[in-house]
């Protein structure tokens, strides 16, 4: 799910399947990461976050995995539903210690096939 060229990368999944959206982040010093969901005409909506001292965190139907060695973040959505169709963004805190500045990835569009 990394951005290439001018178009958002798209992931199409069948309803009921699991989805995995990937993100490569830029700063090895980033200490906090967030996944957001953006539906058409809406603002980014918080899904799940993870701190750099963890490698996995689970929410309701969602799991975030953090691999600091390769600077990779993934979002797993279990039993994907039509309402999960949206653009998903990862964001990292690039502000440094005691500071807070989110840098967003380029987004992945998830399309759920009913």
């Amino acid at each position: 799910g990394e951005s290439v060229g001018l178009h958002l990368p798209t992931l199409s999944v069948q309803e009921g399947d699991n989805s995995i959206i990937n993100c490569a982040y830029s700063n090895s010093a980033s200490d906090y990461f967030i996944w957001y969901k953006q539906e058409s005409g809406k603002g980014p909506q918080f899904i799940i976050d993870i701190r750099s001292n963890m490698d996995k965190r689970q929410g309701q139907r969602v799991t975030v995995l953090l691999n600091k060695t390769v600077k990779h973040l993934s979002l797993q959505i279990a039993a994907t539903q039509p309402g999960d169709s949206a653009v998903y963004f990862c964001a990292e805190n690039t502000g440094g210690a005691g500071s807070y500045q989110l840098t967003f990835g380029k987004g992945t569009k998830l399309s759920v096939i009913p």
Partner: protein
Amino acid sequence: DTAVSQTPKYLVTQMGNDKSIKCEQNLGHDTMYWYKQDSKKFLKIMFSYNNKELIINETVPNRFSPKSPDKAHLNLHINSLELGDSAVYFCASSPRTGGGQPQHFGDGTRLSIL
């Protein structure tokens, strides 16, 4: 009871005009932000205010001037609008400047310059 609200939702205006976008949050947060989202969905921080004090000012033309009358409001005034200013502008807020808390976004203001 919208948490972060922006007005107007749509703004269509001529090149060269001056316009303002308003943002209010009722979450009791100390920090507020303005982001710009371009046509490729790329989200970039513009400004951040903490308790009415400017703390982040990315490379943004000085035609853009944020104003924070109190910590619940962060307005964005844009002078001499240009075609390249066409975008969706998002306001966000978070509990504090230190990382580790998600930012909450409004639903955006779509600015179109004719």
